[in-house]
């Protein structure tokens, strides 16, 4: 009997202490979150930090609710950080694509034949794939949404990526075209998987596996950068195995200067 009373008192004290410390923890988390969410706007970050601190410390009557609000804001901050990471990859991809010379000046009597349309097709493919990736990243970070809400957008973006991939592959059937084809296939498979999961669980599908898409994007980016380096080394002429065209079939110097 005495043991049960002592146990009850101890459990009550522990629960009470946890409930009290939950507000303190939530306040710490929301201040940290505000700094991570509003990275580019320090004035708003400071305002939100103070506002959210007041929210979890005072406005919300329940300790557990305050902790939940703190956790949800913390999760949102982590999602924002992840999104910024994906955006960083996107900008690196764009920079790599910009290094692909569109119209290479004739040098040593040779003209590059990685054409404007080839470079633009590569950039369009990367942008479509990254937009699809960002759309999925959005879904992952929305706690109650799931992929079902964005299903039409995901399908459209995947179809767009496949179309762009086909375009790149048509322009050059070599390793760059092969990477593009794989990227398009990964986008298509991902859209199919999301569609199937959405139909199976109407309302909220699970988090899709984007690892294949990520790997394909990275592979295409590497291939594009390698083609760019080869071009720089070859005085503008892209290696046949990269672009899938023999130099004889490329555009002439006069065409390159149009």
């Amino acid at each position, binding site marked *: 009997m005495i043991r049960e009373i002592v146990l009850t008192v101890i459990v*009550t004290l522990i629960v*009470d202490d946890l*409930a009290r410390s939950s507000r303190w923890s939530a306040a710490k988390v929301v201040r940290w979150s505000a700094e991570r969410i509003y990275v580019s706007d320090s004035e*708003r970050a400071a*305002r*939100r930090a*103070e*506002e*959210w*601190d*007041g*929210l979890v*410390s*005072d*406005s*919300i*009557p*329940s*300790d*557990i*609710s305050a902790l939940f*609000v703190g956790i*949800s*804001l913390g*999760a*949102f901050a982590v999602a924002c950080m992840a999104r910024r990471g994906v955006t960083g990859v996107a900008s690196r991809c764009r920079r790599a694509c910009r290094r692909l010379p569109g119209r290479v000046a004739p040098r040593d009597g040779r003209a590059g034949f990685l054409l404007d349309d080839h470079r633009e097709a590569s950039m369009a493919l990367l942008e479509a794939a990254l937009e699809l990736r960002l759309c999925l990243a959005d879904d992952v970070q929305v*706690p*109650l949404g799931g992929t079902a809400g964005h299903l039409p957008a995901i399908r459209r973006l995947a179809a767009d990526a496949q179309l762009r991939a086909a375009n790149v592959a048509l322009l050059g059937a070599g390793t760059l075209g092969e990477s593009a084809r794989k990227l398009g296939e990964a986008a298509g498979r991902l859209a199919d998987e999301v569609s199937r999961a959405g139909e199976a669980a109407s309302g909220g599908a699970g988090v899709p596996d984007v690892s294949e898409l990520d790997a394909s994007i990275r592979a295409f980016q590497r291939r594009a950068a390698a083609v760019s380096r080869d071009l720089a080394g070859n005085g503008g002429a892209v290696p046949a195995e990269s672009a899938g065209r023999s130099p004889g079939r490329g555009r002439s110097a006069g065409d390159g200067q149009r």
Partner: protein
Amino acid sequence: MGEGIQRVTRQLVLILAVLLDAYRRNEELHGYAIMKLTHLSGPSTYRNLDRLEDAKLVEVRWEDLPPGADRPRRVYYRLNPAGGAAARAIVAERRPDLLEAPPRLAPAPRPGLSTLFTAVRSRAEGAR
């Protein structure tokens, strides 16, 4: 209608509806009241409030507290006249039912765990 808002979502319409209701009654709402009225999570609420602020449709006011107050200041949100017009148009188009019956706060707040602990503690102290 809502020229400053790029994309009107279901959550944004809910927030506009409660802010519009407060605007009509010449009141202002703090963040937690908006969360309670709309049943939205903290991130969803504040992301949409950010959008409304960026579109310059809401006015933000810090609460004036007397010196030595033992609680943090609250931030109050209120639609400005342009925001009121935009909100009325958007809500009328997307959720006309909310114009007639906007969500209102319950008169008495629900007791949280801290209230329960306080009650149990005071009762235990009274018994002693």
